[in-house]
């Protein structure tokens, strides 16, 4: 549905995207996972035909992002990272406006947005600028869907959103996926990776790994251990001084440790056990391997 081949984009000396390639299946949720500055927004702007790549090709829905840009704009929905609706129009007016721009009506595709729009419908006479963060997000998603796009691009829809609202948002995405819409979504929250069918881990314009979340975890190269103590910071400093420790960092209530020979030594009064890595552990390891830790 979306195929990207060797896309490169530079801003002055900064390489925003370097040889990025991937392809998504039809009707899947494909996650672009990476921190600020990784190149996620640049990639989304190229795929939505708002920015030209320096080199490489990208096909969205069988259409070329450079040659067929006008057609692509009719077939995709885009929710930018920054709230981009008309703040001085009401909820209802925004939705009607976007439907009209795409030559359709809210009524025609109402079934698609119903689940999301219903939640903000009681406020339909309120100006978009006066909505809470979560409601703005729901309105923006409704507007991106109102013309029934085949591919939906969501650029960091959950950034700065609390964990409860993030969970709700992902529930909405699952429902949209059932309607057959292909969804490309970017996020800096590593825990959201598990909710995608495929993910690309991206850092400093380079894709470090692409796979299913399960397979990325399976490909973790080392044995990962967890440990904790009364003062994790003190233990962290102690472990970092040990010659047999390859890497050690805080992770929730535990410290995560990789040992050079992949076995945990006996350390007096310290309980250490083997654990399954998370996507975040994989990301940290890949950052180290790619030597892009800054």
């Amino acid at each position, binding site marked *: 549905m979306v195929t990207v081949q060797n896309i490169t984009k530079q801003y002055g000396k900064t390489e925003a995207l370097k040889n990025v390639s991937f392809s998504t299946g039809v009707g899947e949720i494909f996650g672009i996972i990476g*921190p600020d*500055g990784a190149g996620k927004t640049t990639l989304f702007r190229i795929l939505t035909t708002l920015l030209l790549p320096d080199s490489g090709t990208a096909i969205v829905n069988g259409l070329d992002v450079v040659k067929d840009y006008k057609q692509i704009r009719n077939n995709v929905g885009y929710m930018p990272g920054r709230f981009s609706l008309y703040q001085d129009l009401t909820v209802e007016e925004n939705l009607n406006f976007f439907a009209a721009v795409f030559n359709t009506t809210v009524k025609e595709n109402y079934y698609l947005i119903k689940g999301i729009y219903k939640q903000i419908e009681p406020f339909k006479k309120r100006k978009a600028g006066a909505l*809470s963060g979560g409601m703005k997000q*729901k309105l923006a998603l409704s507007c991106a869907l109102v013309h029934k796009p085949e591919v939906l691009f969501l650029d960091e829809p959950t950034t*700065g*959103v609390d*964990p409860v609202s993030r969970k709700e948002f992902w529930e909405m995405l699952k429902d949209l996926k059932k309607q057959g819409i292909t969804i490309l979504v970017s996020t800096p929250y590593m825990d959201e990776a598990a909710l995608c069918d495929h993910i690309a881990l991206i850092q400093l314009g380079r894709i470090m790994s692409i796979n299913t979340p399960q397979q990325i975890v399976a490909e973790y190269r080392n044995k990962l251990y967890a440990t904790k103590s009364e003062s994790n910071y003190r233990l962290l400093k102690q472990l970092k001084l040990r010659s047999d420790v390859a890497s050690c960092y805080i*992770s*929730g209530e535990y410290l995560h440790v990789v040992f050079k020979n992949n076995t945990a030594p006996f350390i007096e009064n310290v309980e250490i056990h083997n654990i399954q890595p998370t996507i975040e552990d994989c990301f940290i390891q890949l950052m180290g391997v790619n030597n892009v*830790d800054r």
Partner: protein
Amino acid sequence: MLTDKIIVAENLTKKFGDFTAVDNVSFTVNRGEIFGFLGANGAGKTTAMRMLCGLSKPTSGKGWVAGFDIWKQSEKVKKNIGYMSQKFSLYKDLKVWENIRLFAGIYGMKDKEIAVKADEMLNRLEFINERNTLVKQLPLGWKQKLAFSIAIFHEPQIVFLDEPTGGVDPTTRRQFWELIYHASGQGITVFVTTHYMDEAEYCNRVSIMVDGRIDALDTPAKLKQQFGVLNMDEVFQQLARHAKRSG
């Protein structure tokens, strides 16, 4: 008032018209602790934090920060705290060194003292070669580490951090927390908001705001025990799920 309590809030309330943003909130923060201030979007965290920083007067209730009354001594409160947010922390068009001088100068530090301490700080952060770099040219993670170091440069008794690690890569996020631990070890109290629930675990105690009230306040271990769950994310989900104001 006891000196080991760096924040004392008693029935703090803030109303905007008929909307009660902060609803009768009482809590204390111990000197030197890392205090996590969590809550759903719209729960009232920012409003509460603005009152504690002396930027907004409560509608009713009392509060002391660093020993000063937030009603009567808000200027003294401001001089004795540090503040950093995700959205605005440094002037992008100024150099690293110029930002340090500007903020330290605002807090009344002498040029000579600034110069010595700035080099010391930049060396510790391994930023010394970036002394004359414009802040806008720094990667986000560096910017946030620098912003934090500048927020505590005048050695405040307490520093307020408003979502300091949003969007920062996982490795730099952890380096940032090591800076927090270090500052806490130096006796600086850290008051921090975050949406990363793993970071809630790094705090000595955590409060969770729902609809303007503090519905839970304890150590992460005790909160997990109290709610019978394995991590702070589940504690948060249980408390905030039924919030009327969330979303």
